[in-house]
């Protein structure tokens, strides 16, 4: 028996060629979850509070979800330069670099003190995508249901709020998980945290949060700035820029998107073919015409290959919406392994140039622009609204409105709310306040954001703009939780519970916006879970609510049930007895998650869940519980690690500790009994046990049988 000390050469060599799995570069996207890969399981760390890096991780996912969107609008010649480098277009080239702006970015908050961010991010989007994402609404609202009761309020409700990302995120996660399973089954990877733990949940959360639809009730996906670029090849540079400006403004964005965003002009200089002196002169001219928001970026137009001196791989975007990543994966599946597009390279100098450009744009143009607007809206609208004059105004409006109703004209005439399109005009105070709140949220001034959301909520409520109310309620809770102020039972009961309930009701029942509701719930659940204690229990409660949104056994559902268990697990009891803990609940939810995983045929995930839940049930006297858990263990091809460890001898306890840390445990053990144990595990146990279930007819695990034609049920 080989000692389970090091990675066997077979496995190692296989690892290095794991590119051979054709459609996939799992490591790239799993690794993209950053430090999660090295996280120890939440359960393994039974400490009362969460490990620091988990907190940071979840917070950073949430921080990076709500970031300024910058539209990209470039001339054809720019894309041409980039295509010569072997990349699809300029947008694809710069997108990954928006996800982590180099260096430290400072922003002033409403108090005037500057706050540094180490990890500020922006999201680049194609200007045409902004149109497209909102257009879905236009086409879909045509067949949107009109029932007598809803007809009035629902006309023109954007279907876009029901992002199409949701089923796609499920599909994508399914692919990732299947791949992880494959790796585990072939011993290429080990059953470690990165494959079973919360890494997948974080990936799911990230995918849910990456494709914000363009909707009237929130401004996350509305562009804050627009990057307009031309290249040095352009013969009529200034005219082209003007044209781009014009076409950018004329582009058919919906009425509720404010078109007065910042324009940032970029001149792409082709380092290999054009003269820098000429470009510099042109750049001076640009500055004269368009002011200070200009940048000259020097890119090389030759294709870079690995063997080049300063080649660096093109960064991978971590915030690809599920739809794009799926398309990517499918494209790779068809491609040859050799021409794997994920291994494209650019020159190091190019990378540095792009990073500098993004940094300058963000630090010197976008953030000051946002700060200026926040300050002015804060002065002009918010203080007026909150001041005595505003009160009188809103009171008189309400008064007038109510007299209006008496004289049979609707009160809506007094408000700025346009119920036909279910939106406010971007110039109305309400829309600007929402924008103020969103922007201060983007700059992480939670306190101000919370105040503003709180204020506009009542305004929206008066106008009966339910979608906006729900959006404001959602963000009130999120910004409140982010301010980090202690969550008292009173806040929990009066604010969080009430608003969440109302927001979900509006989203689901009034607008059937499952995506919006799910996003709202999942973000809140994460933040509540981080707060720990009884907030974690509340988190579990709302996570269960989120399960109700999706009753099909999908990957998302399994991940969320697992999360419910994790939420309960965070709540640790007091004293040695763990009084007041929720260990039994956590165990139950992990078993339920395992059940769903088995249905989906994701046995490694199921094994992980059972592992976590097992200590609670290992000596239970509840017969049916025990039988059920045993059955699931068999179904998932579970091998009792403890038994094997005892079998392999006690000699290497010290080494095994090392193993566990490396996460190589499973693999090493498999290696150990390659001969005997592996066969029963995969063929004998899992499949033959599944067969006796078939006559029941209702055993969902049977689904997996189709994939294993070799199983002929010796039992």
């Amino acid at each position, binding site marked *: 028996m080989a000692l389970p000390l090091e990675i066997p050469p077979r496995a190692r060599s296989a690892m290095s060629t794991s590119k051979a799995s054709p459609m996939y570069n799992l490591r790239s996207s799993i690794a993209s979850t950053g430090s999660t890969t090295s996280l120890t399981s939440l359960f393994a760390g039974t400490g009362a509070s969460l490990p620091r890096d988990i907190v940071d991780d979840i917070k950073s996912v949430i921080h990076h979800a709500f970031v300024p969107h910058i539209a990209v609008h470039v001339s054809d010649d720019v894309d041409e330069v980039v295509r010569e480098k072997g990349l699809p277009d300029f947008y694809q080239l710069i997108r990954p670099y928006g996800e982590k702006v180099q260096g430290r970015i400072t922003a002033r908050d409403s108090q005037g003190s500057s706050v540094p961010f180490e990890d500020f991010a922006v999201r680049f989007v194609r200007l045409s995508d902004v149109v497209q994402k909102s257009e879905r609404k236009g086409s*879909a609202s045509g067949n949107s*249901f009109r029932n007598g009761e809803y007809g009035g309020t629902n006309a023109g409700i954007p279907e876009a709020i029901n992002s199409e990302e949701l089923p796609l995120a499920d599909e994508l996660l399914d692919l990732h998980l299947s791949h992880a399973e494959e790796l585990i089954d072939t011993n290429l990877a080990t059953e470690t945290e990165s494959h079973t733990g919360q890494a997948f949940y974080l990936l799911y959360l990230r995918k849910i949060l990456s494709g914000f639809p363009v909707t009237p009730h929130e401004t996350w996906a509305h562009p804050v700035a627009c990057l307009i670029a031309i290249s040095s090849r352009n013969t009529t540079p200034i005219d082209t820029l003007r044209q781009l400006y014009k076409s950018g403004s004329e582009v058919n964005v919906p009425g509720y998107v404010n078109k007065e965003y910042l324009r940032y002009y970029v001149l792409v200089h082709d380092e290999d073919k054009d003269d820098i002196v000429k470009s510099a002169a042109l750049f001076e001219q640009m500055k004269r015409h368009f002011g200070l928001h200009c940048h000259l970026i020097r890119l090389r137009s030759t294709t870079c290959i690995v063997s080049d001196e300063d080649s660096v791989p093109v960064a991978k975007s971590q915030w690809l919406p599920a739809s794009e990543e799926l398309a990517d994966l499918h494209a790779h599946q068809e491609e040859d392994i050799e021409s794997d597009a994920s291994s494209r390279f650019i020159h190091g100098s190019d990378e540095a140039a792009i990073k500098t450009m993004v940094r300058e744009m963000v630090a010197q143009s976008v953030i000051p622009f946002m700060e200026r607007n926040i300050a002015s809206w804060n002065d002009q609208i918010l203080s007026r609204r909150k001041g005595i004059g505003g009160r009188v105004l809103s009171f008189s409006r309400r008064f007038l409105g109510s007299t209006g109703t008496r004289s049979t004209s609707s009160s809506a005439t007094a408000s700025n709310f346009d119920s036909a399109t279910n939106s406010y005009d971007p110039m109305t105070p309400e829309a600007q306040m929402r924008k103020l709140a969103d922007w201060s949220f983007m700059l992480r001034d939670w306190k101000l954001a919370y105040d503003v959301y709180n204020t506009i909520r009542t305004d929206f409520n008066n106008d009966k703009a339910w979608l906006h109310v729900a959006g404001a309620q959602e963000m009130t809770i999120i910004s409140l939780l982010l301010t980090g102020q202690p969550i008292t039972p009173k806040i929990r009961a009066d604010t969080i519970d009430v608003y969440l309930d109302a927001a979900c009701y509006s989203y689901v029942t009034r607008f059937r916006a499952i995506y919006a509701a799910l996003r709202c719930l999942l973000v809140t659940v994460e933040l509540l879970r981080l707060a720990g204690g009884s907030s974690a229990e509340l988190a579990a409660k709302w996570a269960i609510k989120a399960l109700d949104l999706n*009753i099909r056994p999908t990957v998302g559902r399994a991940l969320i049930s697992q999360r419910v268990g994790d939420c309960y697990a965070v709540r640790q009891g007091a004293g040695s007895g763990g009084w*007041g803990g929720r260990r*039994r609940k956590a165990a139950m939810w992990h078993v339920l998650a395992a059940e769903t995983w088995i249905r989906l045929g994701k046995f490694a995930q199921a094994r992980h869940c059972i592992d976590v839940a097992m200590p609670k049930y290992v000596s*239970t006297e509840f017969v049916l519980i025990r039988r059920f858990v045993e059955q699931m263990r068999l179904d998932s091809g579970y091998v009792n690690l403890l038994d094997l460890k005892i079998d392999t001898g006690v000699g290497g306890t010290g080494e095994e500790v090392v193993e566990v840390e490396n996460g190589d445990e499973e693999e090493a053990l498999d290696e150990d009994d390659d001969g005997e144990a592996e066969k029963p595990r995969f063929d004998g146990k899992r499949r033959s046990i599944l067969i006796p279930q078939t006559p029941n007819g209702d055993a969902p695990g049977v689904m997996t049988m189709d994939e294993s034609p070799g199983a002929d049920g010796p039992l």
Partner: protein
Amino acid sequence: MPLVKTLPLDDVILTEDESTAVYRYDSGVVSFADLQIARGERGLKTGAVTISSSFLSPSPSHLSLDIVVVFVIIIMAGSSTSYYFVIIGTKDNPLYEAEFGSFKQGGDGIAKFREEQRHMNQFIAHSSLDCIEDQQWASKEMYLKTVDKFNNTWVSCFLTGGNIKFLLVHDTRSDEPIRQFFTDVYDLYCKTLMNPFYEVNMAIRSQTFDQKIKAAAKKYL
């Protein structure tokens, strides 16, 4: 003549107050308001609702609709009131378990749990111990009323002096009959404790005890 369509059981869920059913399919959700629920025999719930095609958006492809369609939905077979009763010892161990159905409203007293519900009952009872440990300090009563809720089932709890807990998993709320039931069970349990051959935390296997519990259930539940 409206079309009658039966939807698959797993895809339809009922809201708590049974006023709305939600039907989910690949690309969306339909919820039926104004649902009329009829309780059929053997605890089958049948819901019928008349909807118009304009109500559906986007319309599910497998339900091509004429102007008016009547759906018959079979919801949650076996969800007539059934009870799962368990006495739990100090080490989370079950001492006595019983399942029974309601005798009220012409019930036959036989539990109608579906097979997958039976182990869930145990899971639910077991996991509600977490909540009981919290709430036992908060109330001065020994009867804690409903302590926990899982989907559509509630858990009621009664504490005894020796930290033995009576749990009842039920799907309709009725505090008072359950309290009376628990009081009777408590008497029975005390009598059992008086048995010189019985020790605390031992499983109760007495036939008489079982019969008397069932009688109490028949009387109150």
